[in-house]
């Protein structure tokens, strides 16, 4: 168990760096508390796996430091850092039984057979693997194998941090939620610092108390699931979290007033500055309502997904997506919509204006 601190981390895979694009990670600073559940969320190529490998010690950062419990571990390897990692594809030792797989990290650390047996039994029970302990590990299904990889991390009591690198990629969708609940439950039971890397918002938001959203090598927002949904600090967060994502619409700011397609819009955040090269309105499809007056729109397409209707509309300022209940009657042709002020934000150069 340990708290993890990242101080001004930057990493580049190149020898020389000329511009921002040459950096895989740019100036990352994070404080992760002991025993917390954290997630790194972002699309592929955002740098989250690089960051994970730096924390686990598989990669040395170009700049900056990694601290475990205020002790600098930047130059230590994964074994010296005492971390565990679960990979995207289940890593199991094919020729060993499930029991031997779970016992392997303990055997390598020279524990006595008695200790090993009791530890393995405890973890196997937690992961519901008890009945398969004697089987060959290679005969298990993908989720069974992934449980073994997980078990090998959990079985050690000296682990500082357990890291997950998109661990549910190969799991059948019907089983994903079972493992998701299992992971959450495990975190509450064993109370270790866990860091979960994924591109899947559900996995990140469900698992973690605090989610770090990454975009192009930078952290764009750190926050609770509610914060990320209700008040995205960067247009990318708005787009990435929620499905469908936030509507990001071009607007103009004049004298502190927001103008969108000829309409005045009132927003939640006050506009103190306006010297941006680009200003935008962010409004989630959930927070737009049809009404008699407001912004005139034309309905282009309605798709019914069984429990929602997703409505594509067009107006002078751009295309707006609206989400409503499946039972709601949707007006056809031309109509008007209004934005819920509480969830309407203005962004300057992609960052929220505050």
């Amino acid at each position, binding site marked *: 168990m340990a708290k993890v601190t990242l101080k001004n981390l930057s990493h580049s895979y190149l020898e020389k760096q000329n511009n921002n694009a040459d950096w895989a990670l740019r100036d990352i600073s994070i404080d992760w508390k002991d025993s917390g559940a954290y997630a790194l969320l972002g699309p592929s190529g955002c740098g989250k796996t690089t960051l994970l490998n730096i924390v*686990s010690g*598989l990669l040395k950062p170009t700049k900056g430091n990694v601290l475990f419990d205020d002790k600098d571990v930047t130059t230590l*390897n*994964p*074994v010296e850092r005492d*971390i*565990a*990692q679960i*990979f*995207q*594809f289940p*890593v199991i*030792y*094919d*020729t*060993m039984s499930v029991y031997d797989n779970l016992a*392997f*990290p303990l055997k*390598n*650390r020279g524990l006595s057979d008695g200790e090993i047996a009791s530890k393995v039994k405890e973890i196997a029970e937690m992961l519901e693997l008890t009945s398969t302990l004697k089987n*060959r590990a*290679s*005969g298990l299904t993908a989720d069974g194998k992934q449980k073994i*990889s997980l078990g*090998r*991390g959990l079985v050690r009591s000296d682990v500082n941090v357990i890291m997950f690198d998109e661990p549910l990629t190969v799991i059948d969708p019907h089983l994903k939620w079972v493992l998701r609940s299992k992971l959450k439950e495990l975190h509450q039971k064993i109370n270790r610092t866990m860091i979960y890397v994924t591109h899947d918002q559900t996995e990140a938001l469900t698992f973690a108390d605090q989610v770090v959203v990454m975009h192009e090598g930078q952290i764009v927002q750190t926050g609770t699931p509610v914060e990320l949904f209700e008040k995205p600090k960067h247009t990318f967060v708005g787009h990435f979290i929620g499905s469908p994502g936030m509507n990001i619409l071009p607007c103009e700011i004049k004298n502190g007033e927001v103008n969108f397609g000829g309409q005045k819009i009132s927003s939640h955040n006050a506009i103190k500055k306006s010297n941006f090269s680009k200003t935008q309105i962010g409004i989630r499809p959930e927070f737009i309502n049809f009404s008699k007056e407001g912004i005139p729109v034309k309905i282009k397409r309605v798709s019914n997904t069984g429990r929602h209707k997703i409505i594509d509309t067009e107006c002078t300022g751009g295309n707006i997506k609206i989400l409503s209940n499946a039972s709601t009657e949707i007006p056809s042709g031309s109509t008007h919509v209004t934005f819920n002020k509480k969830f309407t934000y203005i962004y300057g150069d992609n960052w929220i204006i505050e």
Partner: protein
Amino acid sequence: MNKTINQKAWLFVIPVFVLVAFNAAIPLMTVVNYSFQETFGNNVFAWEGTRWFKQILLSERFHAALGRQIAFTFIILLIQIPLGIGIALTMPKKGWGVPVCLILMSMPLLIPWNVVGAMWNIFALPDIGFLGYTLNAIGFDYNFTQQPGDAWFTTILMDVWHWTSLVVLLSYAGLNSIQPAYYQAAEIDGASRWAIFRYIELPKMKKVLTLAILLRFMDSFMIYTEPFVLTGGGPGNTTAFLSIDLVKMALGQFDLGPAAAMSLIYFFIVLLVCWVFYNLMMKNEARS
């Protein structure tokens, strides 16, 4: 899915069919013919039934040749497989070293077999060959044309030199297909270098290794050209492996009946071993 239909390809296959018919099917039938009959030339045949088979199976000469053959194959497998894996493990995984190593490794495989025999013959000659001369100069009484032990030593050394590369290349391909996550996980689990080899690399190489053993078994069991050029089966009959003995019998003594019977027995031994291997491989496949 985007292919257009074109049946012309069949035309190109015809030569192969013809060639196979002449090369394999017809000679094989001739051999079968000879193995059951006695002939004195001029196409005069007398039915002998299974006499030649009995004679061969009971002959000490065949037993001796078979024994030498098994010993040879066993020894070279015992050397080449571990050596091949060892070299593959030490080869670089990226950078300029990769192509260099791969080319170096492929070289022996590209040399024609009779040339290999001739090269080693000259190389090992005790008076003028580099190897033979050096060995004698440092005090070994080495002469592969006179002493059976030296002849075996040289033949095995030649085969190891010629064929270990094949095992190396196959093992290297097997090693390269292991995902880096396996090594990282093992590192995190605190596995020793030996444990990584034993529990990750070896199991992941199992398929290619089975293939390597099978290939090396077949090739070495049917080896002819290289020892023929190097030792001619001598001194005496000490390096006369099955194929060399067979040729001696057929072309040296014109015992066509027994030679044909021996050919078939030889053929069935190879077939049997391959079949056993194949089944083992399939069984493993089904289990995992």
